[in-house]
């Protein structure tokens, strides 16, 4: 059976969630592997959310926010950006690959960008294999 990853996408209420909504309205096709969680702002994604998702079996975590300078709360996405380097690097410390995390900017009028981001992430996670895959094989 082919590997179908589970990907958690944290979308901000104002841009990326609206983009996902619009993608649906336009009936655009994108991989079903993504599970969207709506948040008020990408800046509220605490690194623990990401780590929790991965430790509970998600194969990848995406954070999608407004373009820089367009945050509804002025600088929330800058915070998300500051954190993202740290989160990616710390994933290695906790035994996950950096590629399991991604940060993308999508405005509410860019469903195509949302679809592209999700498709690319799914492809890259499929290549990476399941989370903690090596241990799983041993058992």
């Amino acid at each position, binding site marked *: 059976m082919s590997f179908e990853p589970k990907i958690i996408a944290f979308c901000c209420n104002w841009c990326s969630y609206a983009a996902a909504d619009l993608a649906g309205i336009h009936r655009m096709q994108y991989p079903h592997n993504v599970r969207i969680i709506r948040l008020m702002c990408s800046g509220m994604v*605490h*690194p*623990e959310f990401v*780590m929790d998702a991965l430790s509970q079996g998600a194969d990848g975590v995406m954070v999608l926010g407004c373009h820089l300078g367009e945050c509804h709360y002025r600088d929330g996405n800058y*915070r998300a950006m*500051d*954190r993202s*380097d*740290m989160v990616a*690097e*710390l994933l*290695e*410390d*906790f*035994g996950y*690959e950096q590629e399991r995390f991604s940060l993308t900017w999508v405005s509410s009028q860019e469903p195509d960008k949302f679809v592209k981001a999700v498709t690319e992430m799914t492809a890259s996670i499929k*290549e*990476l*294999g399941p989370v903690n*895959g090596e241990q799983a094989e041993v058992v």
Partner: protein
Amino acid sequence: MGVTTALEWLGSCSGCEIAILNIGEDLVSLITETLNIVHAPILMDHKYFGQCGEGVTLEIPEAVVGIVTGGVNNREHLEVLQEMRKKCKVLLALGTCATHGGIPALMNGQDQLESWEGIFSTVSTDPGAEIPNVEVPPPLDRVYACDEKVKIDMQLPGCPPNPELIGEVIVALAEGRVPVLPGKSVCDTCPTKREGKGMVDKVKRFINNVEFKPGTPIDEMRCLLEQGYMCMGPVTVAGCAKRGGPSCISARVPCRGCFGPVRRDGNQLLDMMNGLVSNGLDFKSVVDRRSVLRFSGAHGRLRPVKKRVARGKVK
């Protein structure tokens, strides 16, 4: 007679037991009236297999309260801990090793076999040394905190734990009420001056002394994080404050995080780095980042670094 109590130590340095003895004057009434200690290998003579070794199975007498210090590092520890759980009504994990892995759990950050080979057969050891396999209990795959192996009813971290809090827990148990333990961070109990963030963009190693005027009280010193030192107060649970301020900070030394995370399942490394980054500090300026988990490496927090596999071979 008081409440029957069994004390037991696993992978421990006996610092927690010394902390019990450090309770001070209250200790006298505790051990003569409140408690009736029936088993404590470190403090009194009571053997696992009968006083003359006639028994064949490990036995610990029944007790209402069990106090366990140290983490679970090998099979013997595991066996003793399970026996304690069977015989004690209320089990208290005392000290950071028992609650979060403590210093021994630093081992979890390295490959175990490599470490053992490093210890027993590096170039500097005399020839003939090998990893012992008889008369030494075999190690577990990593160092565990007690609550990963058995149900623990109460946790009191600290390296060593605050004698006052040990007294509080014991008295509360005897009186049948919930003990009052601090639930906030070290910063909450820290009296240093906060003058505003944003003056530093990097954390310094503690090579030079912090800035303070000798002779002045601790509340006239500036917050050590604001001075740019890697003080782990924000991500460490309070409890060490004895004489007006957290122990290390009262000695003008940044907090090392020895009481473990604020929330029981918190992650000191992640929270500290998040705190630094959210306040505009460069997280890459932290030297040996993983050692932030030096006291809370159990619960799978600290793991050997995965060796990267070249792309394309992963499938």
